[in-house]
């Protein structure tokens, strides 16, 4: 028998959004409940909800206060959370190519030194991971993955970089992530993928969904360059393994 699930906390985010919080910390079980509630709301919509935003530990529910009040919506969200099964049927699994180290992963050697091992060991551990998209946020397509090998947990850089390249795959804290656009980051850069998790005139524009499973395949720089050109032209390059 499953343990009874504690109800989430309903936190007001202004007059037009509710944060449905399942945990205060990064917690895989809580993240699964967030994604489960998101699926239940998609399957059984509540009039007045305009948009939902899953994050590690909470679901942000945007709504129109002209259509529904905080109290009425909160009641319905609690009811749906109580029956939301944190199971995943038909999870999509992506295999994403990555080229590790060198100019594409300038922090690989420093990370190996800090963790007192070899760059090859870091690569082997990172590439062996079975990850899940816990949330997408910050900038378009920036996908935060849970499931990082504990050995690779490492504090963020003291000085964040103002610009890191598009397609960077990095680690920071207990997380790993795939960023799509160039931008600032305080994480350690291990490699790059040619995959565009966000590409404007492609269908779909956003490749990954919160809850998708992700694994990485190491490729050499020549393959990276070829796939990068194909991706620029609109190819996914990422391989959809299931379903």
């Amino acid at each position: 028998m499953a343990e009874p699930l504690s109800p989430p906390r309903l936190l007001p985010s202004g007059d037009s959004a509710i944060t449905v919080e399942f945990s205060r910390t990064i917690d895989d079980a809580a993240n699964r409940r967030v994604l489960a509630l998101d699926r239940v709301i998609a399957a059984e919509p509540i009039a007045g909800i305009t948009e939902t935003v899953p994050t590690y530990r909470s679901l942000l529910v945007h709504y129109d206060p002209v259509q529904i009040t905080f109290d009425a919506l909160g009641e319905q969200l609690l009811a749906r959370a109580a029956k939301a099964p944190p199971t995943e049927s038909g999870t999509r699994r992506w295999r994403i190519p990555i080229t590790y180290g060198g100019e594409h992963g300038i922090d690989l050697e420093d990370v190996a030194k800090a963790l007192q091992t070899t760059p090859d060991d870091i690569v082997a551990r990172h590439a062996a991971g079975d990850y899940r998209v816990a949330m997408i946020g910050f900038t378009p397509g920036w996908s935060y993955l849970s499931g990082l090998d504990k050995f690779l947990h490492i504090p963020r850089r003291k000085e964040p970089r103002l610009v890191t390249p598009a397609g960077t795959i990095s680690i920071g804290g207990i997380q790993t992530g795939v960023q799509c656009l160039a931008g600032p980051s305080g994480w350690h850069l291990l490699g790059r993928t040619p995959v565009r998790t966000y590409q404007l005139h492609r269908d779909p524009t956003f490749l990954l969904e919160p809850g998708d499973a992700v694994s990485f395949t190491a490729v050499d720089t020549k393959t990276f360059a070829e796939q990068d050109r194909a991706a620029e032209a609109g190819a996914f390059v990422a391989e959809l393994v299931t379903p």
Partner: protein
Amino acid sequence: MSKLVVTSIGPASSVQDGGRPGSQRYGLTPSGAMDRLSLAAANTLVGNEPFAAAVEIGPFGATFTARGGAVRVGLAGASRNADIGGRPVAFDSSATLADGETLNLGFARGGSFSYLAIEHGIEGEPMFGSLAVNARAGLGSPYPRPLQSGDELKTKAASGAAERRIELPAATDAPIRIVFGPQDDEFAEENKKLFLDSEWKISATSDRMGYRLEGAVIKHRDGHNIVSDGTVNGSIQVPGNGQPIVLMPDRGTSGGYPKIATVITADLGRFAQTSAGRPFRFKAVTMAEAQTEAIKFHALLHSLSDRLRGIDDFGLNIEALRDANVAGQAVSAVDVSTWQVALP
């Protein structure tokens, strides 16, 4: 084909509309106008849908020239000295530039952003249903970046319709209203009280992503790192230095600092218009009050056409003349608001 050519413009000026909500789950920020009421007023003046794309003009001056035909515009938001080829133009009214004429706009007064709507709208290619500029994501049309001189905003020729003015609710200096949460429990009661009792100023380093506040130092109960969660327009997050940042329409969709409170929907535009360095305060209201105000604000946004009035030479030009400082002190002795109400 008429067009409005940007002949000079300052920073923080871009095409904005109602924004592109709906993809925040993918990290796509909604963007859109900083002051939605003023955007809607400018559009209503020229017969556009309230949240059609218009030019959001930052605090500095700007000039626009009509080419290829006449262009009719609506002006709202922070008022400025304005003229078309030397002819004074008032804010909260429409005006038409004949082919070749130039609209001159001075610095913003009593606010930060003005809105210039173009009759028939701005031609562009919507991205996620919106022309709004989001420079970081490379989105926006006709230009995916802030406007520069030489840019062209294509539209249809002016209709020749009679010019209009719009009567908006009187401006207020009342405190900016907030509801506490979602993470106010990360702050001791004395720090929540300090947040409400303090006088705040907006830092000059603010932008469309966030307004940095200067004033008291708001301490956290146990550290400033929380696990990232979702943000909204008006989220007031408190980073490690204790100086709050209010998130604006170009915000990141998630953030990792505790959010002590949220500006209510009805006050977001008024807050966005608060000039850097001008002191203001926050006031806490209940959720019920915030939602009542949100409903009233929604009704206001969707009934602006009821507030359109014919241009009255006296009602219009008294303020315009005073703004242009053509008539000097003689005009400023007149109570303009009384005159406008009394006139048909």
